[in-house]
């Protein structure tokens, strides 16, 4: 079977469908085969004996099973209305730029230089830090709690797969979904900026995207882990924690101590991603200390973000592994 039909078959399993042509004619008609040559509308050719043979199956690798969980979670996302709402939000970027260019100019000039395409991009992505918290909380914060609340975990966990496959497969899907939406937003912003500017700065954009990527990892891991510890799950709490509570505490500490080391934390990756594009204002609580962030230490921010992600994922995994059902 080809890869294309394999992928297609996952989303559209061929239990019923167009049948392949009959392979060969038999002398006596077999009552169990339909005229199309498939076994009872399955789309596959088989005799009754073949269909009812006593087959024994062997499970595939942990990686394979993790990817299956990932695919199922992606399919679940495709059925959620929030996925399309958030995609539409990214789609609004060029629409607003087209319909309300003055609004974008206001954002871009509000402490920005408008002479570069990167600052225009930063203006178009003004709310990126806020959206980092909101989007990851919505997509990842309720994934695990909903499995237990809706009792779908009782279908999954007894299957012959490790809890690690279940945990990491779902996280991976949440991360990829959020990352996809942000990359879509970046592409909209870049395309819109290129309308007015001939030059882009790939190294700055790459750094910005990398910071956003690690930001998505860290935010989604945090929301996902918090979800593992709650019964009902919450989109509000992780969002509030990562986008307001911790940033505000850091702002207070930094202003009191005049030490801005804490701005290396993943809560400020969104601000750093826009700051590196030339922004001096962002639509987030962390914007007040954007000017004090050390944007030359982006590599350190990335490392801390990755370590933060790993720590929260480990915490969440331990919780799920030990969870009694």
């Amino acid at each position: 079977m080809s890869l294309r039909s394999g992928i297609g078959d996952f989303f559209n399993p061929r239990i019923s469908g167009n049948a392949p042509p009959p392979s060969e004619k038999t002398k006596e008609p077999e009552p169990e085969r339909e005229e199309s040559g498939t076994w009872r509308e399955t789309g596959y050719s088989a005799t009754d004996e073949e269909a009812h043979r006593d087959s024994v199956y062997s499970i595939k690798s942990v990686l394979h099973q993790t990817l299956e969980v990932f695919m199922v979670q992606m399919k679940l996302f495709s059925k959620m209305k929030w996925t399309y709402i958030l995609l539409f939000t990214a789609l609004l970027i060029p629409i607003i730029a087209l319909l309300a260019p003055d609004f974008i100019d206001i954002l871009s000039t509000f402490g920005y230089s408008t002479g570069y395409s990167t600052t225009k991009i930063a203006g178009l992505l003004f709310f990126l830090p806020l959206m980092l918290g909101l989007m990851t909380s919505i997509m990842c914060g309720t994934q695990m709690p909903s499995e237990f609340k809706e009792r779908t975990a009782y279908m999954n966990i007894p299957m012959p797969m490790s809890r690690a496959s279940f945990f990491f497969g779902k996280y991976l899907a949440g991360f990829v979904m959020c990352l996809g939406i942000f990359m879509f937003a970046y592409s909209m912003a870049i395309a819109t900026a290129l309308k007015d500017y001939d030059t882009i700065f790939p190294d700055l954009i790459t750094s910005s995207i990398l910071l956003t990527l690690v930001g998505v990892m860290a935010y989604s891991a945090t929301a996902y882990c918090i979800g593992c510890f709650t019964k009902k799950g919450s989109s509000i709490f992780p969002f509030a924690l990562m986008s307001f509570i911790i940033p505000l505490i850091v702002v207070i500490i930094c202003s009191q101590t005049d030490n801005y080391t804490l701005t290396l934390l993943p809560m400020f990756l969104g601000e750093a991603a826009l700051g590196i594009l030339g922004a001096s204002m962002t639509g987030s609580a962390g914007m007040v200390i954007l000017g004090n962030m050390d944007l030359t230490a982006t590599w350190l921010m990335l490392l801390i973000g990755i370590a933060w992600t790993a720590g929260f994922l480990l915490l969440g995994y331990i919780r799920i592994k030990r969870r009694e059902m």
Partner: protein
Amino acid sequence: MDGGIAIEAENLTKTYGSFTAISDINLKVRKGEFMGLVGPNGAGKSTTLKAITGLLQPTSGTVRISGIDIKDHRHAMEHVGCVIETPEPYPGFTPAEILTYTGKMYGMDQAEIAIRSRDVLEQVKMWDWRGKTISGFSKGMRQRIVLAQALLPNPEIIILDEPTSGLDPRGMVETRKVLQNLKSKDRTLLISTHILSEVSELCGSITMIRDGRVIASGDVATLVRGSVKKGVTLLVGTVRPVSEETLSSVSGMEGVRSAEHKGDNTVVIEFDGTPDQQAEVTRAMFESGAGVLWINEKGATLESMYMEMTEEGS
């Protein structure tokens, strides 16, 4: 399989703080055996099944499935299909999608999934609903889907926790038919149920749990025969009243504890002898000239044994 044992639980104990849910549960299910797990509410049946299937970690004791420790969950459950604690399928999926996902997790290829899906969905009478979203299904329909999901990978061992609860009478009958068909395929079944008639119909052996402990285990017929209430009650319906002489004669026969009239044309005989002696009593009634219309036998049943053994303080 390890010495023909499909499921083995040794000294299984689970405590939650100071509360002991199950204590020293020992359970062996042989390959091809159908075993019922019975007990009153809160006895520890679900806890036992959850410990066996790896849904919770026992405080102490071991569980082996096909000789594999349940700690190696992936391999232990490789040939097991189970329905524990009323699982639900994803509401936004269709039955076809659920079975495709399940099949892939068990290592089945697409053709096998399609063919086996047809088979199991037909068995649970859900083939016509294969493309419909599960969110619109009733509880009974969703239960059939999870049963189909458990049977899809042609498992050697099936573990079910009250599979017919929530189903209408037709659904119960059809589910039992599906499970009975598994006998011919030499499958192993461990089923927890409140419905004793289901156990009588399906299972050759039972394990009875009360207050977290096993109080009886073994062959159903042997356990029932060995229960406290011995003997049978024979009710004989006749065309004409049975004479006092006949009653007196029957009362004196071997194995007969008592024989008396119950109404004009019915005789009640309390009997605890051998089958051959029972045959003699029956022959005597036929030869009495009263014209035997019917004979009913009431004896120790699974229900009576269950009631006796689960009675408080016993």
